């Protein structure tokens, strides 16, 4: 009974993992499409203000104005159009910051874990120091110093989050480095660098891909937090965090200004993380 239960449970996990993989990938694909074609999809100009149309409720509520599906904010800007345009910033940050953070962190982690010695000592000490910083405060500080803008946000995320990759990849590379196949590669005459790139890296790659997916979700959150405290890109451009900040102040008068960007952000972060978890299960030979 116990055994069949285990088999059942496993196939159930796999089915569930498959479903959430598709759901989250689907949502992210929709989001990418929205971001790419925002000017054509968005029903209104996201920056157009009209004080006569301020705080219109969403379409199913009494007093809604046709064409403003999700209502308007206090300045009369269309919430739906701003969410669609906000996807551009969110996804740009996710892709750019995620990838660069991954490259920097994974390289350092790989070197520390495989080369060991003083390289490992320096990198590990740096990781320790980094872990002693409160990340949100550090990112806000960096943006204040670098000045607002897309580039600054990306730099801030890379500077803060490289340790996420470095820590995990280092541990993984250390475990791989102790295995027989690495020793045989060395005996077969492969150099240290060659072994690292040709033998260790492919085996660490699944972990890196999972971390990258998770990091993209984190990048979206960091961008939202920074625009929430009004330190992201210029204040005019629509960002989810900026919309949430505005919605937070007028939550009692116009809940929709907070709810819709929040739901979008929530689903996006959840999707990235579920995608990462789903991939982790896919790569896990025990579950497969």
């Amino acid at each position, binding site marked *: 009974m116990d055994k069949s*239960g285990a088999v059942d*449970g496993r196939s159930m996990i796999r089915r569930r993992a498959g479903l959430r993989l598709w759901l989250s990938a689907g949502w992210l694909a929709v989001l990418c499409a929205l971001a790419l074609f925002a000017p054509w999809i968005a029903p209104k100009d996201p920056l157009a203000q009209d004080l006569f149309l301020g705080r219109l409720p969403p379409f199913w509520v009494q007093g809604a104005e046709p064409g403003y599906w999700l209502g308007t904010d206090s300045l009369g800007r269309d919430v739906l159009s701003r969410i669609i345009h906000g996807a551009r910033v969110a996804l740009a940050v996710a892709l750019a910051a995620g990838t660069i953070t991954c490259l920097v962190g994974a390289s350092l982690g790989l070197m520390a874990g495989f080369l060991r010695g003083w390289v490992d000592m320096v990198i590990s*000490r*740096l990781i*320790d*120091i980094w*872990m*002693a*910083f*409160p*990340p*949100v*405060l*550090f990112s*806000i*500080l*960096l943006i*204040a*110093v*670098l*000045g607002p803008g897309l580039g600054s946000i990306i730099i801030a995320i890379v500077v803060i989050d490289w340790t996420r990759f470095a820590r995990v990849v280092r541990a993984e590379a250390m475990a791989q480095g102790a295995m027989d196949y690495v020793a045989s590669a060395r005996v077969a005459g492969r150099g240290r660098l060659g072994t690292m790139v040709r033998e260790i890296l492919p085996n660490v790659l699944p972990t890196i891909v999972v971390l990258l997916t998770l990091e993209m*979700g*984190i990048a979206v*959150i960091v961008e*939202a*937090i920074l625009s*929430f*405290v*009004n*330190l992201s890109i210029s204040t005019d451009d629509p960002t989810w965090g900026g919309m*949430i900040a505005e919605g*937070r102040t007028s*939550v*009692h008068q116009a*809940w929709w200004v*907070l*709810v819709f960007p*929040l739901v979008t*952000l*929530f689903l996006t*972060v*959840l999707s990235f*993380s*579920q995608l990462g*978890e789903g991939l982790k299960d896919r790569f896990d030979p025990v579950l497969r």
Partner: protein
Amino acid sequence: MPFLRIFLLRLLTTAITLAGVAVIVFFVIRVVPGNPIAMMLPPGATEADIARLSALYGLDKPLVAQFGIWIAGVVQGDFGTSITTRQPVLDLVLGRLPATLELSIMALVMACLLGGAAALTGTRYRGGRTEGAIDVANGMALSVPDFLWGLVLILLFGVLVPVFHISGRVTPSLDLPFATNFYLFESLIRLRFDLWADIVAHMFMPALALAIPLAAIIGQLLKQSLKETMNLDYVTLARTKGYGETRVILREALRNAALPTLTLVGVQFTFLIGGTVIIERLFSYEGLGNMAIDAVINRDLPLIQGIVILFAVIFTAVNLIVDLLYTVLNPRLRHG
């Protein structure tokens, strides 16, 4: 003796870490483009203003000398003077520290209770729908960070069913008889339960938002080690003695399963404290994090430095305590 050696070694690495933090904070603010004095002054300040202020804060000296002056002060407990309020940084920071500590500890307690309850229920009804539901809830709680949980809570319990306060630490119109800034703690000691209830109603949502992700981690890890422990011989022995399942879990398995979770809680607790920065902002809670963001926006360099250093001290102290606690509690390490 090995215990003493471990302790001294950890103390040394902690000191190195803190020194590293001090160096990085100092130079990040100064080396990166942008004159700190220009950052301090409003736009349109004259050259003479800049020169005068530079001399006042010792910023006309070379960078290394500035660092020397600053660090010598820090070691003696002098973190300089805040530019915006003209008060000593140390006083400002210590004034806000209790608020953040109370929030963090309340969140930690909530996380342990929630996570512990999830793990125990999941273990008690393992293999069934209950465990499946708990796993799904854990997964959700873990995927979404505290900032978003805070916003969700504001909507649920601040707007939809307004039972808790969504901003501040205490209702401003209340008369506070407190001698310290540990409001929650002091209101209990003074038996002022009316004030205590008001403070809790303010702290509940920010603390819960911080607690949710940590509760999920505790729930997952504790459940996993509980389930492993439940298969050990001594637990089977307790079962054959006729003890009920709930009693076996609580009395026999929990003690042994809790140790691995403890180390993790320590590391995660520092993440929770880091999370207070944005959560305090979100709930307009008058703690360190909220002050830190104001300091960054107002370009109050000495204050920023002081707060970051204090956070780093708290982080490393928590890690140090957890490491030592783990060594003390784990006999294999103590004698190893």
